[in-house]
């Protein structure tokens, strides 16, 4: 399969702020590609360049073989873009918004209903409600329906799950997965939630306008090179300081109910265990663990 999106050495600066510092990536057709990183990393800038709403200062980008600068009109027909901020018409109803986007692209809701059915059925009973009066989760589903109604080949979704609770996020990812498998739509999606990275075929870890790494989630966690240990005890607050005092500790970070500790060369977990016991901790549990995407991100960003 060919690459439906390509980005090559793209740079973008806003005044003094260098938003993108020469990023490159290729997205294969039918893939879910994730841009994973914090606010301000450059994710939205890249989406806006791919959506032909912003010109790069340098570098090139293509969608379906079309150049974002030269062929922007054609590109706009083949992408569906869902910006991070809700950008439908608040005072049109659910149905009117959908009709508006369909007619803008010279099509009808009926013609492409099969694409949105799975998503739209959740909000259909509110079709006469104004978009501005919808809850967050329903707005998100309407926005996705509107981005799909002209049957795009590529979906560009900028942080669709930010601020959304875990159950709605799970449902949303299930919808994306069906769009990919049942309709072959390519999806480029950004998220600040590291756990969602595992749901993508490939991801780019983004920080400060750079890609730290591009690969499958499994390859990224698999290539984690540090010695990683999970540590817990009865007194978690004090344990954090005690672990940081240990000269063998490279990094110490909270991870849910435990701390993840990386150990410097020349030290080992027995010494770690000894140190923690020496500090007077009870019910100490030290286990060697595999890295998560979040561990990998933290290791790559320091």
């Amino acid at each position, binding site marked *: 399969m060919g690459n439906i999106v390509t980005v090559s050495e793209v740079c973008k600066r806003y005044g003094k702020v260098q938003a993108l510092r020469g990023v490159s990536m290729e997205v294969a057709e039918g893939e879910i590609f994730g841009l994973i*990183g*914090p*606010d*301000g*990393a450059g994710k939205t800038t890249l989406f806006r360049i791919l959506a032909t709403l912003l010109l790069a200062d340098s570098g090139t980008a293509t969608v379906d073989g079309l150049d974002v600068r030269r062929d922007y009109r054609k590109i706009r027909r083949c992408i569906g873009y869902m910006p991070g901020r809700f950008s439908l018409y608040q005072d049109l109803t659910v149905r009117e918004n959908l009709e508006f986007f369909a007619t803008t692209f010279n099509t009808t809701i009926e013609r492409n209903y099969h694409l949105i059915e799975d998503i739209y059925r959740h909000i259909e009973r509110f079709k006469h409600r104004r978009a501005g009066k919808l*809850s*967050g*989760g*329903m707005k998100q589903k309407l926005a996705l329906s509107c981005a799909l109604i002209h049957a795009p080949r590529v979906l560009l979704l900028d942080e669709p799950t*930010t*601020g*959304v*609770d*875990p*159950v*709605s*996020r*799970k449902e949303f990812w299930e919808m994306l997965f069906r769009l990919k498998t049942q309709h072959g739509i390519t999806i480029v999606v950004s998220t*600040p*939630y*590291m*756990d969602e990275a595992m749901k993508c075929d490939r991801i780019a870890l983004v*920080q400060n306008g750079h890609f730290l790494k591009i690969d499958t989630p499994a390859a990224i966690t698999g290539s984690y090179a540090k010695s990683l240990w999970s540590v817990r005890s009865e007194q978690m*607050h004090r344990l*954090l300081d005690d672990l940081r005092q240990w000269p063998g500790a490279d990094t110490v*970070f*909270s*991870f*849910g*109910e435990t701390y993840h500790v990386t150990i410097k060369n020349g030290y080992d977990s027995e010494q770690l265990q000894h140190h923690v016991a020496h500090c007077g901790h009870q019910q100490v549990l030290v286990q060697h663990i595999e890295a998560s995407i*979040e561990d990998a*991100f*933290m290791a790559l*960003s*320091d």
Partner: protein
Amino acid sequence: MKEKFVIEVDGLSKQFGNFVAVNHISFQVKEGEIFGFLGANGAGKTTAMRMLCGLSVPTSGHATVAGYDVYRQSEQVKRNIGYMSQKFALYDDLTVGENLKLFGGIYRMSRHQIRQKSDHLLAELGFTAERGTMVRSLPLGWKQKLAFSLAIFHDPKIVFLDEPSGGVDPITRRQFWELIYRAADRGITVFVTTHYMDEAEYCDRVSIMVDGHIKALDSPAMLKQMFQVGSMYDVFLALARTATRSE
């Protein structure tokens, strides 16, 4: 030892027309506790939190916050709590120092107090050189740390954090939680909402709201044991699936 509660809620409800946003909730929060207040979008968290902050009058039930009644003493409630959300925290077009002065003034601190506490706060955060910097031009992670420090600037008994840590990188998010730990160790009670389930694990106790009710309330360890699952994420999924309210 008799436990001291800084938030006591008994049968608290809030109704908008026919819609019961918060339906007869009861719970207590202990002094110095980190209390996680979880729930799906639309479960009633924000409405409940607004009542506890003295911003919205309950329809029925009782609640005291820092010893003050939320119906009759909402001004005293506001004076004794701190509040921070991701949506609003700091004035972007004021400098760091001006924000400190403004918040200190609102909470009726003396100039001398404000000056003294500002110096201490900036030194502790390593922001002393940024006193004259516009908040707008600070990195997001710095803003969040500053916003939290400001929310506890007037030494409130309780600080309410409404999704405080969204959008930052994983390291900054953890540094932010370490500030929360430190505040709790100093005896400040922390009441926090979040959609990050790993952060639910950092709380001493967690409540989970479903359709206006509190469906579960216990320590993360007990909740996981009760639902026989390995993470708070799974506890949340198990409970939120029982929701019938369509947001």
